[in-house]
């Protein structure tokens, strides 16, 4: 049963034209003229992009399209050469990542950053925000944070149940499989009760059996009222789960629209397969499901 916000988002998106930089009825994240150069290479050059609140937006593109770099800029892990962007109406250009996280914009990483030599439950507890015991002075006075810790642990266990990790709570995170680490990272991000969750290649390195369950979890997150933006280069996954797709190639947004509209867009097919993929003497081109990262 889709949540209200999700339903509203989907119906709102149906009126949005399929063109790069299209304005959304209720954007949670808006970016303008964002550029990032590495020496002579312009990795990101996005004129304008908007991300609808309550929707699942996929940011796709072939390897090297600048998706992850764009993601890193928006989440504060890299500094842009120019441009401005705002979240929930407030300008957040080049804001430090921990400040963004506190404001409800939380991201995960392509190479999973589970904290290996800490237990799964400690990974989860670390995610909880506003902990008194994280102040050095209060840390030595357990009575100031014990009840809060108990509440956080309960919340963490609920999330672990939901993500099928409860049995692993006391194991080291480093002993989990790749897919379980992805789940843990997602669950940990949810400890912050984010408004906007940004998933960097949530499917990378996950075995096919677990992919379906990951997709369900992503839908689930949206149903609970959290806006989801994720980077992916696997088109099949994108078609399954997203409400809106933004396609990047060579640092620019080349197309956006509903998954079906985007899949049929000649610019997208050209970007993925090369403009001359159907002519003779070219190789079979880059497989849609191959490769990692961008």
């Amino acid at each position: 049963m889709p949540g209200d916000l999700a339903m509203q988002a989907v119906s709102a998106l149906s009126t949005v034209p399929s063109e790069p930089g299209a304005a959304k009825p209720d954007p949670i994240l808006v970016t303008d003229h964002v550029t990032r150069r590495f020496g002579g290479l312009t990795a990101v050059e996005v004129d304008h992009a908007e991300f609808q609140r309550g929707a699942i937006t996929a940011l796709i593109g072939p390897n090297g399209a600048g998706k992850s770099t764009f993601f890193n800029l928006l989440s504060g892990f890299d500094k842009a050469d120019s441009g401005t962007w705002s979240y929930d109406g407030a300008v957040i250009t080049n804001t430090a990542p921990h400040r963004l996280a506190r404001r409800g914009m939380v991201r995960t990483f392509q190479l999973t950053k589970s904290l290996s030599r800490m237990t799964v439950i400690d990974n989860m507890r670390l995610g909880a925000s506003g902990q008194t015991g994280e102040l050095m002075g209060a840390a030595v006075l357990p009575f100031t944070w014990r009840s809060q810790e108990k509440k956080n642990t309960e919340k963490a266990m609920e999330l672990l149940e939901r993500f099928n990790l409860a049995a692993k709570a006391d194991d080291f995170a480093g002993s989990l499989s790749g897919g379980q680490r992805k789940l843990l990272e997602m669950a940990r991000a949810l400890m912050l009760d984010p408004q906007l969750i940004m998933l960097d290649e949530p499917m990378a390195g996950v075995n096919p059996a677990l992919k379906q369950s990951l997709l369900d979890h992503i839908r689930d997150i949206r149903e609970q009222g959290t806006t989801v933006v994720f980077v992916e280069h696997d088109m099949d996954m994108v078609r399954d789960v997203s409400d809106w797709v933004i396609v990047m190639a060579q640092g620019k947004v080349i197309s956006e629209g509903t998954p079906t509209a985007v899949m049929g867009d000649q610019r997208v097919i050209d970007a993925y397969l090369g403009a001359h993929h159907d002519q003779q003497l070219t190789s079979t081109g880059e497989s849609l499901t191959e490769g990692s990262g961008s």
Partner: protein
Amino acid sequence: MDFGFVLTQSITQAIGVTAIIYLLATMGLNIQFGYTGLLNFGQIAFVAVGSYGIGVFVITIGWNLWLSIIAALLLSIILSLVLGVPTLRLRADYLAIVTIATGEIMRLATKSIDFLGGSQGISGKMGDDFYALNPFPQQDRFEFGPFSYTRNDLWVVIVGWVVIAVLLLLTWALMRSPWGRILKGIREDEDAVRSLGKSTYLRKMQALVLGGLFGTVAGIFWAVAKQSVQPDSFVPDFTFFCYTILILGGAARVLGPVVGALIFWFLLVFVEQTLILLVQGGTITFLDTTQIGPIRFILVGLGLMLLLIFRPQGVLGDRKEISLDAR
């Protein structure tokens, strides 16, 4: 000389003044390196701040000991800030480079600045205020079975272990708290912690300051116990012995440094005294007593290598934990 004497000597040294100094400094490293993953290769600089703080403030300037201790601790915090502000935003290796250089700069600077005693160092009764508090009755020696202490030594060693116990308790309380959890998170992956809304810069700075203060306490203790501060005592080796002790005992374990220091100093003295016994008794003829000093380090080093091969987690560590890849 017999084997009982060797054993008594080894135990006395393992819980003695030098071991206490190393142990305090290592407990600081445990917070910085063991829990937070900060590579401080210049713990000796913090120790020197403590020792020279006492030497200069008490002897050269003439303050009382307690005021000097506070001043030395403040200087230690300033040193941490000076080292941390430019480096903690950068990759971990920069702190390592800056700290090891600082340790050497401190030693060479104290050697050439007359106000700091020059190459002579500072000697004098800098611990008098402390020894005046000695509650033990006036008598030459205190005997406990085979162990024997002078009145002042007994007082120093007891206070030393009490200070250690208090700081261990503090470490334990901090590391089981959410604050300690952030430190461990930083050690594992700083970016992950930042993505969860925590300022890692602040926590790294706090860990650097706290670990440095432990080192400074070691230095204060050194100056008070030995009543003399010599620039050439503050060599980089000190820090590396501390790392040895830490890894031997088990990093990121509250009691790791204690176990490490006890074993390290016991072995060092035990090997030395045993060799002396054997050489003087004529059992070993190919060495003379002057060669024993270096030989004991070779043997202890060999022992440590074997330990790291067969028990890389240290005495108190968890093998499963250490075999996980760092990220």
